[in-house]
């Protein structure tokens, strides 16, 4: 099937980026925000239209293409600039464009009066183009284009305040760390192409294309041993691709860039570093589910890394003072959940969590942005408190996000998190003991999540007013130094909060686990995604049906208890001692940055300066270049004696030369 509107979805934000990038400097703020929101709005509207128009076909596994042109066609290698809409990319474009639209609206209020307003929105629109390309691509190479594009925009937006050193450092860190992951991803793609002869996802007879996934489906599954990782087969492909995912989605060991990325403006943190770009890794892994199901070792790695990251980041999140840093570690932790789901074969549950997380995490970030603006750019939670009565709408909407992420029943986070924990517990892909351990880690993380989110809320909205109401900060230059008390944000910022809060409440109802409704309501989300996702190969005999709904209900009850327990613990703990001093190890993030500095960065720097620069560059390379010049000068000095200035001596040389040449030919 064909759907020409797909290309409009990706091209509208590109047009916006071009208009704003080329002419934005001469446009007013209203015109800029109009163009930026309009183009993303067009994308969003078309996404909804296209998705619901083809909903029935998508449920039955239709793949709707929009072929634009053949990009590369060399020998056996072919890559098209073509878009693919199936249920997986359909879900993604829905929430990406929806959340992005409201974040754009929020940003028009948040960025008011900032220098480079046009630049910000040009980057943001460019990001939307790259993200939608990543999602809608119908082959891995085009996906890689989007993948690098979002990385670039992330770099540009983190470094938006480019006059500040910390923003530049954070931007470079994000870019370099991502590059490491991308290298793995690129290697994985090369190997996939070598093995399967195609970088397309699926067969398409109308274009004569064979898909890599059809190849993967025809392969035998690799055995579950560690040595297959290096065997150069399907497990190696899967592991290399996951390296890319750990970079983009901030998993151990490449998560270090995401907390620093909070140096960018808050709408950027909400859009790129919470709701959309960082979930690209999850998208890629679930897109490649056909590869992963044949590589059980790789899946185990994904699950273990995911669970470890979830717990690790949650323990750091509890000890941070910067409100955005807490949310950043929370994002890392939630991304860990999504990978845990993918690793245990519950790709659908992972995507479902991506979906719900996009709403409540974007909401929380925007809420924190509203708080930061309300307090005149204060991010330190130890200087907040008691904001409930000053910013009622920010408080109410953030409370929804807080309860949703904590896993309070009937809100969106509850359904998705519960689904992941249940599928981990009963996983048939992993060794059953490992599944139980991972479930325990996940449950512990859920408890910590509820605690640190309660801490964030209590420190911000309850308790003493620890902020400085006398405006002794040097913010008077901003022109609003006369507002001493914090005040509620304008409607352009509150409205997106309300919309996203509604999303955080209701998004979960798309995928209500069947056990909860007693099988009366179909799990729409799972049903929809089913054709786009590969079925994992069961290792043991633990079939789902045999378990019945009993286990699931019991686990749901445990999750609920955990959520309320966490909130209660956080409430009673931080209400009493809001400025509780966390252990130094946690406050300093386990010294991971310092360890990387000592183990990798400093040796690289030392080698670069000591060996590469001072010896190889100065001595060998410069030496060779200067030596060549000196040699030429030497010859020149010798030869210049021939230049006598006498025309007849030149003639003599010419004639002698001619005689020699002719003599050579005559005699030889």
């Amino acid at each position, binding site marked *: 099937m064909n759907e020409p509107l797909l290309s409009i979805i990706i091209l509208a934000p590109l047009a916006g980026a071009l208009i704003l990038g080329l002419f934005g400097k001469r446009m007013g703020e209203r015109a800029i925000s109009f163009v930026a929101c309009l183009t993303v709005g067009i994308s969003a509207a078309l996404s909804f239209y296209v998705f619901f128009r083809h909903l029935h076909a998508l449920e039955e596994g239709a793949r709707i293409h929009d072929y634009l042109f053949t990009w590369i066609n060399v020998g056996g290698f072919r890559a098209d600039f073509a878009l693919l809409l199936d249920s997986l990319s359909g879900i993604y474009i829905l929430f990406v464009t929806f959340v992005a639209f409201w974040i754009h609206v929020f940003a028009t209020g948040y960025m008011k009066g900032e220098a480079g307003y046009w630049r910000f929105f040009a980057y943001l629109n460019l990001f939307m183009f790259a993200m939608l390309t990543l999602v809608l691509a119908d082959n891995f190479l085009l996906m890689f284009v989007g993948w690098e594009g979002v990385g670039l925009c992330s770099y540009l937006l983190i470094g938006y305040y480019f006059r500040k050193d910390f923003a530049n450092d954070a931007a470079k860190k994000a870019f370099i760390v991502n590059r490491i992951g991308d290298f793995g991803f690129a290697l994985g793609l090369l190997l996939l192409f070598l093995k399967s002869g195609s970088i397309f996802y699926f067969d398409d007879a109308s274009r004569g294309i064979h898909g890599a996934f059809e190849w993967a489906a025809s392969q035998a599954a690799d055995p579950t041993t560690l040595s297959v990782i290096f065997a150069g087969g399907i497990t190696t492909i899967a592991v290399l691709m996951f390296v890319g995912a750990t970079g983009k989605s901030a998993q151990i060991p490449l998560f270090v860039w995401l907390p620093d990325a909070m140096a960018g403006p808050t709408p950027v943190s909400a859009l790129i570093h919470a709701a959309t770009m960082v979930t690209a890794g999850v998208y890629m892994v679930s897109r490649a589910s056909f590869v992963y199901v044949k590589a059980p070792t790789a899946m185990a790695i994904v699950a273990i890394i995911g669970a470890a990251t979830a717990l690790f980041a949650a323990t750091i999140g509890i000890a941070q003072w910067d409100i955005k840093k807490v949310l950043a570690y929370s994002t890392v932790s939630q991304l860990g959940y999504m990978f845990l789901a993918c690793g245990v074969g519950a790709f659908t549950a992972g995507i479902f969590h991506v979906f719900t997380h996009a709403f409540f995490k974007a909401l929380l970030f925007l809420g924190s942005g509203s708080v930061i603006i309300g307090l005149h750019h204060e991010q330190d939670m130890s200087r907040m408190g008691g904001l409930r009565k000053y910013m009622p709408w920010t408080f109410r909407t953030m409370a929804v996000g807080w309860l949703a992420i904590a896993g309070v029943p009937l809100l969106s986070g509850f359904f998705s998190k519960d689904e992941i924990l249940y599928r981990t517990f009963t996983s048939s892909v992993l060794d059953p003991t490992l599944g139980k351990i991972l479930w325990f880690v996940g449950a512990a993380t859920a408890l910590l999540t509820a605690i640190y989110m309660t801490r964030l809320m209590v420190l911000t909205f309850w308790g003493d007013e620890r902020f400085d109401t006398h405006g002794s900060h040097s913010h008077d230059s901003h022109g609003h130094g006369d507002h001493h008390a914090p005040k509620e944000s304008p409607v352009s910022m509150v409205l997106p909060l309300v919309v996203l809060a509604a999303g955080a409440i209701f998004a979960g109802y798309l995928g209500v686990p069947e056990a909860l409704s007693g099988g009366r309501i179909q799990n729409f989300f799972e049903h929809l995604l089913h054709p786009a996702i590969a079925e994992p190969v069961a290792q043991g005999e633990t079939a789902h049906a045999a378990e019945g709904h009993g286990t699931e209900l019991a686990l749901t009850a445990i999750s609920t208890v955990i959520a309320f327990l966490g909130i209660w613990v956080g409430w009673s703990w931080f209400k009493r001692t809001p400025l509780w001093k966390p252990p130094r190890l946690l406050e300093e993030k386990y010294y991971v940055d310092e360890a990387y500095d000592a183990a990798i960065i400093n040796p690289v720097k030392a080698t670069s300066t000591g060996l590469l620069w001072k010896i190889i560059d100065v001595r060998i390379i410069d030496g060779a270049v200067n030596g060549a010049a000196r040699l030429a000068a030497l010859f020149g000095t010798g030869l*210049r*004696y021939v*230049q*006598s*200035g*006498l*025309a*007849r001596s030149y*003639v*003599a040389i010419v*004639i002698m030369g001619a005689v020699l040449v002719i003599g050579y030919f005559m005699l030889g």
Partner: protein
Amino acid sequence: MVPLSWYLGLSALLFTIGAVGVFIKRNAITIFLCIELMLNAVNLAFVALSSYFGDMGGQLFVFIVMTVAAAEAAVGLAIIISIFRNRESLNVDEADSLKL
């Protein structure tokens, strides 16, 4: 019918006169004329051999040589005039400012 060797002999003679002229004369105009003489000696050899072998290639070459010679004459004379204006002399031995 004049045999080929006569033509070639005349050509060689003209060429030698030209070469010796370039070698021993000091006046730039004379040297220039000697160069033209060498070029035309070669032209003579070309047409003679072309006629002898019945091959048009040689005659084509003559046209190319004449074209180049015309261009070279234009440039060369311009240079000579310019040298004369600067130095009031056409003695090539005096135009030696490129010397060490």
